[in-house]
């Protein structure tokens, strides 16, 4: 069994490396499904778009819809709120975005944001009547004290970014499709 090749490499060395290598590749292949099974399943992914009718929302009113099992705030801004948001476009923002960046052209009064604080995922207050809107008249997260302004931009507290504006489109003048 001590067949030595000319360069000093034994037949056994080749077999050991080949077998370990093939076994290693096989083991990695087996790990993939073990990891992947934890990702969202097909039924969870299937619920990933939502339609919202915005015609019934009055000026200054917000509604809470559900998008991917998480709250979605749809708000019709008043003229005064639009003015206030625009006047603060140039303020010292943690994540600079103008109101125009965060709404769609021709629908500047409709603000669609995820009702999920960008800190650790609590639902901010301010969408329902009588709730604390925070120091900037927008949304206030009670968990760790993040304050968002009228346009849902982070102004104070631990949250790193503005409230997320999900991908959405107006399918008609009054209906948006989110996702």
């Amino acid at each position, binding site marked *: 069994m001590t067949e030595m090749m000319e360069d000093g490499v034994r037949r056994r060395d080749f077999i050991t490396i080949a077998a370990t290598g093939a076994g290693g590749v096989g083991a990695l292949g087996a790990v993939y499904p073990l990891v992947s099974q*934890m*990702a*969202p*399943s097909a039924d*969870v992914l299937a619920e990933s778009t939502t339609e919202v009718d915005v015609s019934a929302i009055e000026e200054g009113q917000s509604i*809470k819809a*559900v998008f*991917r*099992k*998480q*709250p979605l705030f749809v708000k019709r801004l008043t003229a005064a709120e639009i003015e206030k948001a625009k006047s603060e476009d140039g303020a010292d923002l943690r994540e600079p975005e103008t109101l125009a960046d965060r709404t769609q052209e021709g629908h500047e009064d409709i603000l669609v944001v995820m*009702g999920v604080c*960008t*800190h*650790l*995922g*609590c*639902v*901010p*207050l301010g969408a329902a009547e009588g709730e604390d809107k925070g120091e900037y008249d927008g949304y206030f997260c*009670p*968990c*760790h*004290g993040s304050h968002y302004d009228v346009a849902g931009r982070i102004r104070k*507290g*631990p*949250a*790193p970014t503005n409230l997320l504006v999900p991908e959405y489109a107006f399918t008609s003048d009054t209906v948006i499709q989110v996702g």
Partner: protein
Amino acid sequence: MSFPWAKCYEPNTAIERWLDERLPLPRLIYGCVGMGYPVPRNLNYMWNFGVLAGFFLFLQIITGVILAMHYAANADVAFATTEHIMRNVNWGWLMRYAHANGASFFFIVIYLHIFRGFYYSSYKAPREMIWLLGVVIFLLMMATAFMGYVLPWGQMSFWGAKVITGLFGAIPLVGEPLQVWLLGGFAPDNAALNRFFSLHFLLPFVIAGVVILHIWALHIPGSSNPTGVEIKQESDTVPFHPYYTAKDGFGLGLILLFFAFMVFFLPNTLGHPDNYIEANPLSTPALIVPEWYFYPFYAILRAFTFDFLFIPAKLMGVLAMFASILIWFILPWLDKSPVRSARFRPLYRTFFWVLMADMALLFYLGGAHAEEPYIMLSQIATAYYFLHFLVIVPIISQIEKPAPLPFSITEAVLGKDDGAVLDGADATPAKLAGASA
């Protein structure tokens, strides 16, 4: 055990001899927690908490396995089956209250066990590995307790899960996909509940495994003691059984009185009333707090409301929270003082109590609302916490002048040790003869 005077197991009956030759399990027990394990004779009641922690792990596994027989890990019925356990299952209320309060008591005894380690510097050579394994056990306990709290699927369960998995979302680049992967969805739901149940069932057995390693590592050098002076001779020790089985048994009796009082008279005091409201993804409770035993670390998480050294506030809070525990891993190398026990370290003793006060403050702040003055106080307390481990302990261990140590455990207990000799030149034959005369 390595002490030459340790008693050896001697099988007396034929059946014991038969078993000893095939599976020497009685020999193992005799050597670990029986008459074959010599232990310092001067252990105080702070040395009870290891055994007590073992007891509460055992209790959690027993009550937990029973609860799993009646509970269903499905988001539609999880809350209902929890109430089913409380109302319909024979003695179900007792099992659940014992399990919920058992978790609290497990943490109480573990914290006292860890603080004992701080005070007497139990982590120092040659016991670093015991300490490291202990920190691993603590981390596993935190993961297990967190996932267990999600299972009743109440409001605090849901929002706790959301906030804690949100921690992973703070990691740059991979954070969001990682969070979705951990939850199996975009928010906690059935997938998350199921996997948390599976892991909550598994992890206690992993803990039990690491506990065995912890005890194994302990039996290499043997137990530490309140003087911090190593065992020198047989008169420094007594056998674990019956001396410490009795002492631990007495301590167990005391804590069980306290435990029974909580289970039977104040079963929900340590919990949160919001968890008796079913999980609602669209409504956040006014104050989201974890279970009380996470308060100090939660306060550290919330202390970072500003960007720090170009690291965003959110990520910094997460890093600080994990670092506050991971820092314990390097404690044996931060504290370079050759003296173990704080009894002989006046400066360290003072700062130990300052740390305890700081942790008590963090504990209070972790349960408070996220508003001033609590935020500023959390920032100060967090800064001090890290200052203690990274600056104060290393400096003290360099500059402190320790008090004189006793020659041996025997001398510390009896006031004199006939076998005591001075090191080096003084240990001449004449002196030795004088000492024995």
